[in-house]
């Protein structure tokens, strides 16, 4: 089982974006510059989101956009948004959710990441953790929360 990579560069607190496009752009650019994904990644992410939305009706609504194609090395990014952006609900694509916490993933081989994916789905259900994330004032604070919650799972 391999670890999932993330780093301070992938933590984006209080991102000031006003659309899904802007949001994806900000994170994908970072992922491309650091060699985690190939140029097609953003397009594929957007297409997947349109077809199979990733908004989740968790205690505080979140979105988990992710694709595996055009991804060179598995990673995840956590962004909190200054203003909510609408994501459609995975469980009911007709419903839109105002989301301010976004976990974006590029996953090369999900079978290698089962443990951390399960750990993450547990975190998504914990109201206190989601609250702490939404209140984080800096990228470092986000990183600290992730390090604490995912100790041993991330590289």
């Amino acid at each position, binding site marked *: 089982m391999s670890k999932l990579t993330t780093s301070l560069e992938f933590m984006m607190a209080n991102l000031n974006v006003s659309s899904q496009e802007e949001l994806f752009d900000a994170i994908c650019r970072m992922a491309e510059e650091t060699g985690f994904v190939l140029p097609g990644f953003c397009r594929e992410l957007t297409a997947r989101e349109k077809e199979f939305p990733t908004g989740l009706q968790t205690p505080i609504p979140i979105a988990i956009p992710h*694709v*595996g194609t055009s991804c060179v090395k598995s990673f995840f990014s956590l962004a909190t948004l200054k203003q909510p952006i609408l994501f459609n609900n995975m469980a009911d694509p007709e419903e839109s959710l105002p989301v301010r916490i976004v976990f974006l993933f590029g996953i090369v081989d999900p079978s290698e990441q089962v443990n951390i994916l399960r750990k993450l789905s547990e975190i998504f259900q914990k109201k206190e953790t989601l609250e702490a994330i939404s209140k984080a004032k800096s990228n470092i604070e986000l990183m600290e929360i992730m390090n604490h919650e995912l100790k041993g799972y991330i590289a």
Partner: protein
Amino acid sequence: MLRLVVACGGGIFTTTVVTDRIKEILRKERIQHSVTPHKITEIAGIMDADLIIVTGKTSATNRMGIPIMLGMALFTGVGESEFIEEFLKKVKEIEGSK
């Protein structure tokens, strides 16, 4: 042996977690099973499965009438125990009729 299909949109996150949890549940109940991943778009044509679990709401139906259940609860935790109860009920029904 119980033949399950887990179908999802993107094929990574939710499928992985839901498949893992389903295997765990069935292992605990000592029910022999196989789980095959598919895309939601492939649901209509699936032929050799007893039950299909989808991880995203869909209006897709299976041509052969294989029952479809929404397994989001295993991922979000919301309504999880109800899902597991219904799931096991259905599974035992299927196994009983074989």
